[in-house]
C-alpha cells in the first residue's frame, strides 16, 4: 500500500470509529455519577479488612490475583530484557570510562541518594495506610540508586549495584507473592486469602497480608527496575557496535 492509500483507509476507519465511540459515550452514566456499585462493595470490604488505603486493598487483597499477574509481567519483562539485550556473538565488552562531574552535582547526589532511599522505603511500608505502595515505592528506590549515575559516573553506579544479588532478589520476591498465595490456600482454604492477623485500623501492621505483599512487590519492582535499566545502560555505555570491529557485517 502507498502511504496515501494507507492514510485514506485509516482516516475513513477512524471517522467511523469516532462516530461510534462518541455515540457510545453519550449512553454512559454522566461524568461524576454518585452510583458506583463495585466501589461501594470494595470500600466496605477494605474497611472490613482494616486497610485504610482502599486502593491498596483492591490491589493486594480483594483483587490480589490481578497484581500477581502484573508482577509476573514485570518479572517476565526483566527476563525478556535479559534475553534480548544479551551481548550478541559479535559484540565486545568495553569498560565504562570514568567521567568528570561538577562538585555541586556530586554533592547534590550524595545528599539526595540516602534521602530518596528512605522516602522509597517509607512509601512501600505505608502502602496500606496512605497513597503509595510497593509499585510506587519500588520505583523511587530504583531511582535513588541511579542518582549515583547522574551525580558520579557509570562505574560508581556499578559499584552500588550488585546485579546478581538483585536478579535473585527479583526472582525470590516474585516467587514470594505466589508463596503467600499458597500459604493462604493452606491456612485459609482459598488462594491469596488474607490469613494474617488484621491488626488495628490505621496502624502500620494493619491489613494482614497487604503489607507483606506490598513489601514483596516493592522489592521486586526496585530490583527488577534496576536490573532492567542495567541492561539498557550496558547497551549504551559498555557494548561496542558490532560493525566497529567486524569484517563484513550483515
Amino acid at each position, binding site marked *: 500500500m502507498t*502511504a496515501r492509500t*494507507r*492514510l485514506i483507509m*485509516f482516516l475513513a476507519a*477512524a471517522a467511523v*470509529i*469516532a462516530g461510534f*465511540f*462518541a455515540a457510545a*459515550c*453519550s449512553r*454512559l452514566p*454522566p*461524568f*461524576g*455519577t*454518585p452510583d*458506583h456499585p*463495585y*466501589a461501594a462493595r*470494595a*470500600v466496605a470490604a*477494605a*474497611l472490613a479488612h482494616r486497610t*485504610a*488505603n*482502599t*486502593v491498596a*486493598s*483492591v*490491589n493486594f487483597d480483594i*483483587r490480589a490475583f*490481578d*497484581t500477581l499477574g*502484573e*508482577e509476573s*509481567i*514485570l518479572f*517476565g*519483562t526483566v527476563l*525478556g*530484557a535479559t534475553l*534480548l*539485550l544479551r551481548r*550478541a556473538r559479535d559484540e565486545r565488552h568495553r569498560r565504562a570510562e570514568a567521567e568528570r562531574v561538577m562538585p555541586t552535582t556530586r554533592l547534590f547526589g550524595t545528599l539526595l541518594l540516602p534521602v530518596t532511599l528512605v522516602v522509597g522505603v517509607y512509601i512501600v511500608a505505608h502502602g496500606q*495506610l*496512605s*497513597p503509595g505502595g510497593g*509499585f510506587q515505592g519500588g520505583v523511587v528506590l530504583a531511582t535513588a540508586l541511579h542518582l549515583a549515575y547522574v551525580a558520579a559516573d557509570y562505574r560508581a553506579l556499578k559499584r552500588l549495584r550488585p546485579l546478581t544479588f538483585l536478579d535473585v532478589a527479583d526472582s525470590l520476591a516474585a516467587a514470594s507473592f505466589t508463596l503467600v498465595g499458597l500459604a493462604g490456600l493452606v491456612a485459609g482454604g482459598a488462594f491469596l486469602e488474607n490469613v494474617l492477623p488484621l491488626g488495628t485500623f*490505621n496502624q502500620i501492621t494493619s491489613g494482614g497480608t497487604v503489607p507483606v505483599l506490598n513489601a514483596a512487590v516493592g522489592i521486586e519492582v526496585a530490583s527488577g527496575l534496576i536490573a*532492567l535499566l542495567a*541492561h*539498557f545502560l550496558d*547497551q549504551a555505555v559498555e557494548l561496542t*557496535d*558490532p560493525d566497529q570491529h567486524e569484517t563484513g557485517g*550483515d
Partner: protein
Amino acid sequence: MGIWPYLAAGWVLLVALYGLVTSHNLIHAIGCLAVAQSSTYLLLLAVGYRRGGTAPVYSDLTPGTRPVVDPVVQALALTDVVVGATVTALLLALTIQLRKRHHTVDPQALTGLKG
C-alpha cells in the same frame, strides 16, 4: 462536563493510532503506543470519578463522612501503568537490537518479511 472526559479518551486513542499508522521511527511508534495506553487511564479514571468525591484513603478520613471516588478503577489503572511500562521496555529492547542489525529505526524501511 457531561461526556467530554470520555470523548477525550477516544480522541487520545485515535490520535495515537494516527501516529502509529504514519510513523517513520520505531521509537516514535512506541511512544504512540504509550499515548494509546494513556487513553485507557483517562477513561478508567473518568468512569470512576464521583462529583465531590475525595481520595479513597481513610487514614485521615472517618468512613462515611465524605463520598470517595472509585478505588477499583484506580487499582486497575495502576495495574495498567505497570503493564504499559513493561511492554514499552520490551519493545524498546527489540528496537535497540534492530537498530544494530538493520541500521534503521524506520518501520517503512523494514522489508525482511512480506508476501
